């Protein structure tokens, strides 16, 4: 099989046949997804994880009165939840984008291949 009739192998074929090359493609996606998840975890852990420490080290937050409730209590009752949704939403967008990029790469036709080289 040579000449114009031969279809060039695309990454999808390597994945489907579980070749060593396919394994490399998949590992790259896995690493990218894991990296994104860990980044989100560190950002989230940093924000929520710092909260007990901040409340512990800054006792003055108790003295600040917001709507009749000490700020130290309001801080753990309200803001964490919008933060969860925001972080989750940002992560979901990036993770879907990584998947989409992989899909493009894997099913890349000849004319599109250069973009990913």
């Amino acid at each position, binding site marked *: 099989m040579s000449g114009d009739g031969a279809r060039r192998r695309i990454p999808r074929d390597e994945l*489907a046949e*579980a070749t060593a090359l396919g394994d490399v493609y998949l590992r790259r996606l896995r690493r990218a997804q894991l990296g994104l998840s860990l980044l*989100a*975890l560190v950002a*989230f852990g940093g924000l929520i994880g710092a909260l007990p420490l901040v409340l512990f080290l800054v006792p003055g937050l108790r003295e600040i009165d917001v709507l*009749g409730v000490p700020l*130290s209590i309001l801080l753990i009752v309200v803001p*964490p939840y919008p933060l969860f949704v925001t972080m*989750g939403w940002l992560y*979901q967008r990036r993770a879907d984008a990584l998947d989409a990029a992989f899909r493009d790469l894997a099913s890349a036709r000849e004319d599109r291949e250069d973009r990913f080289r």
Partner: protein
Amino acid sequence: MTLSIIAVSIVATAAIGIGSWGVRLARTTSDLFVASRAVTPWWNAAAISGEYLSAASFLGVAGLLMKLGAAALWLPIGFTGGYLALLLFVAAPLRRMGAYTIADFAEARLGSPGMRLVAAATTLLIAGFYLVPQLKGAGIAVGEITGGPYAVGVVAVAVIVALSVGLGGMRGITYVQAFQYWVKVFAIALPACILLIHLGGLPAKSALFGRDLPTAPAGGLVVELEREHEVRFPRAAAYTVDGVPARAERGETRSIGPGTLELEEGTTVPVATGIDAEPGDDWSRPVAEDGPASPLLVYSLLVATFLGTMGLPHILVRFYTNPDGPAARRTTVRVLGLLGVFYLFPVVYGMLGRVMTPELYVTGETDTVVLRLPVAAWPGLGGEILAAVTAAGAFAAFMSTASGLLVSVAGTLSFDVWGRLSGRPRPRRADRRRWFRIAAVAGMIVPAAIALVSRDLDISLLVGWAFALAASTFCPLLLLGIWWTGLTTRGAVAGMAGGATSATGGILLGLAIGADDTDVAGALLTQPALVSVPLAFATMVAVSRLDLRGTQPTEGQLLSLHAPEGLGLRARQAAASAEPVELPRSGP
């Protein structure tokens, strides 16, 4: 009281109605997968939230806030944060793998049938421990609502849930649980807002945030004690029992009751043993130098709930009801929002309860504050209507979680355990349905029996135990199984055994020596995740590395976990592994 019974009946009837409607709807589709496609992310997210918000959330958070103080407010943060962890590390891969249960996942990922039994046994243990507090909550709530004995509530709810799951209502359970989520949000939010408006804000701020201990409200405090209660008087107080006057000195412990305890207005309320009487400014401290709010204990609580959520079996099976990986992610983001809306409100009950229902400090039954508060804060018809609303919400809470748990117990018993032990892993559909129904009834007997005899156990203890077990077994299994190619069967089993042993050992030892969670050593025993989870991870990695048999080839499994949809890879995978369809699981 009559209003409450009516409200509870309405919620129960509506749930049964939606359930039977859902069953009919699901029958028109040929298999589970197509039915799951009909579940949009919003419905699915409401169903997950409905299943997840248990009696521990609806009643327990406010009760713990009243009892322990503001440190309890870290609990819902950890509960919700666990969902973020699920989103980041588990949701999409688990959905893509197409596993129905953790036992399915474990066997498929490690290529070992033995792993299925290990994971199934762990599922039963965790779900059982989680089911008991639901039934306990049911007993307490039904007792509160009808005035009947505790056992009646437990048995009635156990029978209703077992029958509704066993008779095949699981197809409609997504719609029932989604409905129950909205019932719960409405039932916790509406009375909280109305009571705050009725009272014109938070009353008696000095008992909440100032120097005062909880005191008898205007008009005095009358507490009916059904049995003898050991109480401690944090300050000297005069009181009467059945009209006989008595006086207790500061710090004195007395046994009072059965009888009617009366305190005059302004008298400092005695507290049941096991509760710390704290003045408002200590009580309202989210983090403090010592006690349950010490930084180490707060972090321990956050880590335990955060990691534990990841391993709760009845939650994990829900991801299969999503059409694909990206939908699983979208659903989880919505769950974060729905949980957040709910968790804004229990704090209101805990705070108002400290002022308006201090008698719960005497009896130690702070878990009932959500049910008791409306009438105490607003005597008359208004309060009774609101009490009916919270009663309906509590009922929805333990019904939805208990049925979700029972479905996962019955599925595991009938398919993962029975299917293997009877040597017929691929039984006929009719057999499978029969096994499932028997398992639904059988799976309820043990938790109901435990709930009946454990009336005086703290409702939060078993939930903590279940969370610690989930965190120490399934959490490392899932994280390493999904993201680390080096995991072996021996490593997984050793890590799960080590995690389960250290978590359970810590809790049992804590019970045996009567450790209370107000000091560091005691808290690490009653809440061992901070130690047992790293131990489980380390054991899994170390034993896998030392495993002479090495790892199984994992390319296929990793492909099915991580490859995005739309490449035509998954169809080939599914055909090759010949997934069983028509399994009775917790989603349509």
